Structures are given as C-alpha cells and as structure tokens.
C-alpha cells in the first residue's frame, strides 16, 4: 500500500485546512511529526503487510503501478529523517503560529511529492510528482518574502520550468514509440529502437531536465541562491533531500529501469561528476556566507554520487546510494547548525562570527561531527561511502577519476575547516558574550543527525549490507 504514503498526508492536509483553524494549527506539527516517524519506521523495517501485495486494493484503484525496492526504501528513509529535521527547525525558527502552520502544510506537500517520485513507475506520474515537489519548494524558498528569497525562488522556478518543458517534450516523443508512459512499456519501446534519432533526442533532453532539477554542474545556476536565501528549515529540506529525490534518484531510476545504461552516458556522467566535485569545492572555498558555502559543498558532494553510479558496477551503485544517505544526513546536520547560528547571530556572514563553540557547545560539537563526515574522516558515515566510491572507480579502471575524488576530499576538508575556524573556533567575537545555545528543538535535531552519522559509521557493515548493497538489484534489470 505505498499509495497510503500519498493519500494519508493528502487527507490530513485537507482536514487541517477545513476544520476550525486554531486547534488545527497546533495539531499540524504533531500530525507531520507522526507522519515522518511512521515513514522512517516503515522504511527501516520493510514492514511486509504495508509494502507487500497482500493488501493492494488501494494501489490497484489508481491503475498506476506503485513499486518499492531497496533504492526506494533508502530514499523514503532519507525523506522521513530530513523532513523530521526540517519540521523541528521550523518549530523554532518560524515564530508566527499561522505562518508555521502554512510552512508545515508545504513541508507535507513536498514530502508527498518526494514519496511519489520514489514509488511511482510511470514517466508521466513521475513528472507530476516532480512538479508537486518543485512547486512546494518554490514557495518554501520565497516563504520569508525578502528580496533575496524571491530572487532565489524565481531563479529556481525559471530553470525548473525549462527542465519541465524538456521532460514533457521527451515524454511526448517517447509516447510516439511506446503504447503508454509506464516504465516497462517505455523500456521495451526504447529497447526495440535504441538507435532511433528521436529516441536518442528524447533520452537526451529528459536527462538534461533531470540534471537541472538536481543542480549538477553546469546546470547548477539556481542552487546557491535558492539554498542560501531560503528560510533555514527549508534549506535543510532542499539540501538534504529535495535535489536528491528530484535529480539524482530520478536519474538513477531512469537509467536503471527505463532508458538503460550505456558507456557513452556513463562517460558523460563521470565527467559531469568530476566537474561538480571540483567546481563545487573550489567555489565553496571563496564563500563568506555560511549557507552559500554549504550550498556549493552540496554541489561538490553530489558529484561523488554521480561518479559512483556512472560506472554502473555493483560496488559503484551501492557506494552512490550509501553516499546519498550519508550526504542527506551530514548536510542536513550542517544546515541545522547553520540555522542554530543564524537564529542566535541574526546573520550568515562568517566574517562576523568566531568562537561560537564556547557559547553553543552542542551546535559546535555536532558541527564538527558533520564536518568530519563530509570531509571523509573515519569512522563516520561519509568516510565509508566516499571510500567505496573511490575503490569502485579504481576497480573499474577509472584511475584518474578515482584520484580526483580522493584529492577533492582534501579540498572538502579544507573549506569545512575554514568554516569551523571562522564560526566556531578561536576567540569569541565582540558583542557575542550574551549568545546562548540554540533552542532545544534545534539541538535535538542536530544531536539526532549527529548520532545517525556516528552510528552509521560505527555500524557500517550492518547498515551497508542491509540498505546499500541490495540496491545493486538495479543492475539485474
């Protein structure tokens, strides 16, 4: 019954907005919290009665095939965890109760969109869920209505519209050769005419559309503005999961289940991945704005994921999926830390900070954990996934790319250490004596994400074996 992941939140939103507003505003937070927790629990234990076919009456009503495999489970888990972190941040950064109610509504809608993306097996339905996620994201970015937020949202909207046109055109072209838009039908049609010029154009423009949605270099123009201008709770969601579900996951799924993988595509993706890693890391080094630096860092980290699955080997794919999960966790953690700092300092300018770890010990400590995981320091989660990707690249004969990935890890550590030094270490800045630790809710979110980062690193064999490794089933198709 994966469709319940869409139906229950949808019914919830309708009821929350139809029933008397004051009590509903209070209930909204708890409703969203329960949704996130249930999604996390279901994704972790793969509860058979829910995911199996025994009770498929509700799913069959839609006449569109929902399907959940190990890749979907990893994504659903990431969606649940990151949405939970975003919700906790929103509770303590969106102060007005009415505004918070609207934010929570949008957060639930974005989660519905992402859950739809990872469970549908139809190109047109996939496109619609991508649009749901994108629309919710536009509004979340512009939520505070500042000039920068509106500009960031507008840039994202324009580039997303270009991606939308590309995807729709591609679907229209594919519908000329396929009987319908289900993954299996399009896969079969593409298999019958792999060298058709029309099919190649359709696949190419669909791929470009996904790369725009994923913010991959050179299609990343919208991403730094959107991440840095969005409210903190929205930044956590965007950086943690939205671009991964809308971009990276979709790309992997389309390659694995619809278009099929070939060496030319792999070579292009490898080059784009390497470009993203280096360009993102170099751009991050020159930033003064904390959230903007983390945004460029995301571009760089996504490069690792792309290089991992671009080689299309079992180890490469498993490493890429593992890095999707790890990146979702440690990048959300770093954005939660940025939210904590922003609420206390009122700015994201790193030049105006310093020594904050003395006044914000939990934020400072969890930030170090996030930084070390992002930098690939053992034994944290980020270390293992990067190591697997580098080994997979080396094993598949891509020694140059493997070296780029390894050297870029040093660059990552360098810019994150600069960030730590400017924000948390050193002497306490002037006028910062009265700064206090962030609100309990933000600290809880940070500690939860830091604990996951450490736990995944320490329990690496079990986590990798149960979650990331089975994803290689994609190669069997």
């Amino acid at each position, binding site marked *: 019954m994966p*469709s319940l992941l*869409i*139906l229950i939140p*949808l019914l919830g*939103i*309708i009821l929350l*907005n139809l029933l008397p507003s004051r009590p509903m505003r209070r209930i909204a937070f708890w409703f969203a919290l329960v949704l996130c927790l249930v999604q996390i629990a279901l994704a972790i234990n793969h509860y058979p009665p829910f995911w199996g076919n025994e009770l498929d009456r509700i799913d069959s*009503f*839609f*006449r*569109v095939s929902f399907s959940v495999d190990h890749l979907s489970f990893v994504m659903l888990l990431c969606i649940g965890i990151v949405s939970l972190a975003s919700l906790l941040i929103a509770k303590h950064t969106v102060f007005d109760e009415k*505004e918070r109610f*609207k934010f929570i*509504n*949008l957060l639930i*809608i974005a989660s*519905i*969109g992402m859950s*739809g993306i990872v469970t*549908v097996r*139809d190109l*047109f*339905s996939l496109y*619609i*869920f991508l*649009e*749901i996620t994108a*629309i*919710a994201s*536009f*509004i979340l970015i*512009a*939520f505070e*209505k500042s000039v920068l937020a509106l500009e960031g949202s507008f840039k994202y909207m324009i580039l997303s519209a270009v991606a939308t046109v590309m995807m729709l055109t591609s679907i229209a072209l594919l*519908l*000329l*050769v*396929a*009987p*319908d838009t289900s993954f299996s039908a399009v896969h079969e*049609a593409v298999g019958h005419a792999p060298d058709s010029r*029309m099919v190649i154009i359709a696949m190419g423009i669909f791929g470009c559309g996904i790369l725009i949605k994923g913010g991959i270099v050179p299609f990343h123009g919208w991403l730094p503005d959107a991440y840095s201008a969005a409210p903190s709770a929205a930044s956590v969601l965007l950086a943690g999961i939205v671009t991964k579900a809308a971009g990276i996951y979709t790309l992997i799924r389309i390659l694995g289940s619809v278009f099929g993988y070939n060496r030319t595509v792999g070579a292009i993706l490898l080059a784009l991945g390497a470009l993203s890693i280096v360009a993102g890391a170099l751009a991050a080094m020159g930033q003064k704005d904390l959230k903007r630096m983390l945004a460029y860092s995301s571009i760089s980290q996504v490069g690792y994921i792309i290089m991992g699955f671009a080689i299309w080997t079992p180890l490469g794919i498993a490493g890429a999926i593992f890095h999707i999960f790890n990146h979702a966790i440690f990048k959300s953690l770093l954005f939660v830390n940025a939210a904590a700092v922003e609420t206390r300092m009122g700015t994201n300018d790193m030049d105006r900070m310093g020594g904050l770890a003395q006044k914000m010990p939990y934020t400072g400590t969890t930030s170090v954990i996030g930084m070390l995981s992002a930098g690939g320091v053992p034994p944290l989660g980020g270390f293992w996934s990067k190591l697997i990707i580098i080994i997979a690249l080396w094993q598949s004969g891509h020694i140059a790319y493997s070296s780029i990935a390894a050297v870029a890890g040093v660059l990552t550590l360098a810019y994150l250490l600069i960030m730590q030094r400017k924000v948390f270490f050193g002497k306490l800045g002037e006028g910062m004596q009265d700064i206090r630790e962030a609100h309990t809710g933000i600290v809880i979110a940070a500690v939860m994400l830091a604990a996951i980062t450490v736990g995944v690193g320490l329990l690496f064999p079990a986590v990798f074996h149960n979650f990331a490794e089975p994803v290689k089933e994609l190669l069997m198709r």
Partner: protein
Amino acid sequence: MKINIILLISMTAAAMWTVMGRSLLKATIGLAVTSAVITILMFRLNSPLAAVFELSVCTGLITVVFVSTISLTKPLTHKEIVELSRDRLKRFWFLPVILGIVGAGLIVTITRPGFSVPIHAAAAALKGAREVLWNLRQLDMFAQVIILIAGALGVVILFEEKRRDEW
C-alpha cells in the same frame, strides 16, 4: 498542413511579442493569444480534451492570475521601460535568431515529402476523456489536487501581506 504551419508561426510570433514586449499587461495579453492559438492547433490535431484544458486554464485562469499579480506591482516609468528593453535586446538578441533557425529547420523537415512520425498504434487509439481521467490516470488526477492545494497555499503565503498592507 499549411494552416497548421501558419498557426505555428502565429503562435511563435505571439510568444515572441510576449517576451520581448515593454508592457507587462500587453505581455499577458500576448500570452493569452499564444494559448488561444495553441488551443486551435490542438483542436485541429484531434486533441479536444487537451485543447479545452489549454483554453480554460492557460488562456483563462493564468491570464487572470497574471493580471491580478500585475495590479499588485509598482509600474516602471516610461524611461525605465525603454532602458530595460534596450538592455534586454542587447543581451538576448541571439534568442530570436536561434528560435527562427530552429523553427525554419523544423518546417523544412516536416514539409519534406514522405516525412512521417511512427506513432505507436496503442498510443494513437483515441480514448474518451472520461476513460483517460478516471480509468487510466486516476493517480495523476489526485496529484493535480495536491498541485492545486500547493498553488493555493502559494497565493495565500506570497500575497497575504500585500493585501493586508493595502487594507
């Protein structure tokens, strides 16, 4: 075929007028005209359902939303508009050129004798609106409801303050 090509050229001209024009209001009208021409094209290409949606949503609803939005914006002075147009023309002069070349290429391709697009038999079979909406694409209908809710929230969030200020 000739009428369709004339309609395509009209649609392109209306779209160009929309994005190159100096007045926001005229651009909105240009967009409505573009949508209206697309509607006629869809009717001519045996897609009445898509045509009706295009007519009602794009020509009607979206134009109303745009006009409402424009009424909330601060109008530019004539001098600013002229400067903005010049700047835009300087920076994006190549866009209409590219559009013209691609359009001409497409027209040459599709008017070449023997040109045909291989349409899959199942995709070409005409299906009624009711069957498509309620039997084949139920999930998409529900998803559209979610998009409408998100859109409504967007209007409430982004325009509420402005309305409060005006009151």
